């Protein structure tokens, strides 16, 4: 049976790839974007299978309207992809308070609004799959990514709790953690905080990292998400791209080693 998708930020990047993969195999897609003109070509190509919806995910009322419209049009919601997001780059000391607020507003509250709007629908169905687009930077991080990682780690913690809360209703939750890809996320979806001289060496290393990295194109992410939404038991977490698997497990091992090294203090805290 064909599935009904609700995808935020579907005008470009991953969101567009997800929408295309769904539509090309005959699924229906409520495709949201801040500017629906950016999804006009999808409508031209796939007709009634696409419902373009204007949506800024930080507008809670608009989120609930969009979810209602999608449900009314297609009768159900099977896959909800919280894809809209961007990254804020800067040392923690350099971040503007408002810049950090805006980062959380889109990457955490946007997902929260959509999740709260779809949950009653999915519970009533007794099925559904909520797919959060996180990042490898949602489980590990580096200097300059504190604001972005705060938002993505928050999303990871929220989603891990959520998955346990809704499993009994037949609702699945998956957190996709992409590494670097050559979408315009790496350019136009990055907001850089005002730089302070004290952090010159950090900026130099960030510039160098950006220049030296060869990133894969996003053409495979559509096929990859189809495997997840079609799985009987999809994973709670999955990397997109091979790169995260080359460094995240090592970071995990490092943390485990440090916790073990300081276990005498953990014990001492209990008076042992």
């Amino acid at each position: 049976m064909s599935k009904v998708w609700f995808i935020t930020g579907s005008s470009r990047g991953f969101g567009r790839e997800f929408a295309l993969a769904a539509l090309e195999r005959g699924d229906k897609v409520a495709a949201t974007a801040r500017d629906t003109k950016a999804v006009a070509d999808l409508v031209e190509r796939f007709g009634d299978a696409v419902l373009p919806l204007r949506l800024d995910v930080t507008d809670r009322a608009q989120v609930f309207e969009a979810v209602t419209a999608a449900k009314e049009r297609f009768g159900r919601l099977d896959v909800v992809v919280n894809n809209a997001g961007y990254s804020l780059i800067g040392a923690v000391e350099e971040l503007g308070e408002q810049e950090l607020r805006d980062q959380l507003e889109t990457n955490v509250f946007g997902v929260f609004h959509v999740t709260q709007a779809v949950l009653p629908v999915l519970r009533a169905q007794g099925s559904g799959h909520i797919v959060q687009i996180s990042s490898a930077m949602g489980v590990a991080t580096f200097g300059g990514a504190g604001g972005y990682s705060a938002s993505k780690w928050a999303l990871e913690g929220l989603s891990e709790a959520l998955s346990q809360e809704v499993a009994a209703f037949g609702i699945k939750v998956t957190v996709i953690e992409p590494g670097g890809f050559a979408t315009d996320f790496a350019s136009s979806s990055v907001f850089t905080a005002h730089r302070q001289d004290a952090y010159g060496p950090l900026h130099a290393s960030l510039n160098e990292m950006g220049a030296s990295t060869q990133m894969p194109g996003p053409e495979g992410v559509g096929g990859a998400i189809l495997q997840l939404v079609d799985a009987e038991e999809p994973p709670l977490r999955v990397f997109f791209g091979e790169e995260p698997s080359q460094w995240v497990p090592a970071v995990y091992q490092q943390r485990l080693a440090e916790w073990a090294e300081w276990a005498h203090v953990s014990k001492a805290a209990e008076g042992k």
Partner: protein
Amino acid sequence: MSKVWFITGASKGFGREFALGALERGDKVAATARNTDTLSGLVEQYGDAVLPVELDVTNRDQVFAAVKSAHETFGRIDVVINNAGYGLFGTVEEITEQQLRDQIETNLFGVFHVTQAVLPILREQRAGHIIQISTMGGIVAFPTLGAYHASKWALEGMTDALAQEVAGFGIKVTLVEPGGFATDWSGASAIVADAHPAYAALHENMAARRAQVVLPEPVGFKSAILTIVDAEEPPLRVFFGEGPTLMAPQVYQQRLETWAEWAHVSKAAEGK
């Protein structure tokens, strides 16, 4: 040489233990609380070694004023403990937008404000130790605590980046991750969302689980924190309590296995 501490939420629970640990050995403490009446016992006992400061960490201007007054009084700041915080109980569907905002405001923005206020001083000193009181729940997640986890995972991600950004200035950063302790964290200090009937079974289940657990007293917190602040090379992460040292390796192992099990999808996302 005696150290100067700046501790938020010093009136009770862990914060009070940290303040006592410092004062008992002759260090100086700027002890903040929303109501300074709650600090009068410390002042009576330790006199000028304590600077009681009225502070609601969500008030950014008040944070900067408090840090300035501590710096002026004691001439330097060696140890900064971001301890103020609380837990919000409720499923992701049950919590209100405002409850989530308030949770993130105190547990993340409060720490962000203090961190931004102290960094120029610590950089100038080329020394200092920022200690964030996180939780085992900053790396694992349980049902009905999604918002709390969001705030603490966010703190973990931001702080991990911060540690890498300020190491070059001689500033150390530690995330203290306590397991469950017999403080009023899950009692009087907690906020509980209105229950939704759909989650009645889950709440019953969680209450039964909590009733079975006997939580240790934080009797060893004083000596544990002193070990951390006196270490030449303190850890980035340390558990307080033995419970997390048993649980975290299992949770991490499970995540590593899930990532490995789904590596074919990670690869497929690159079109391989």
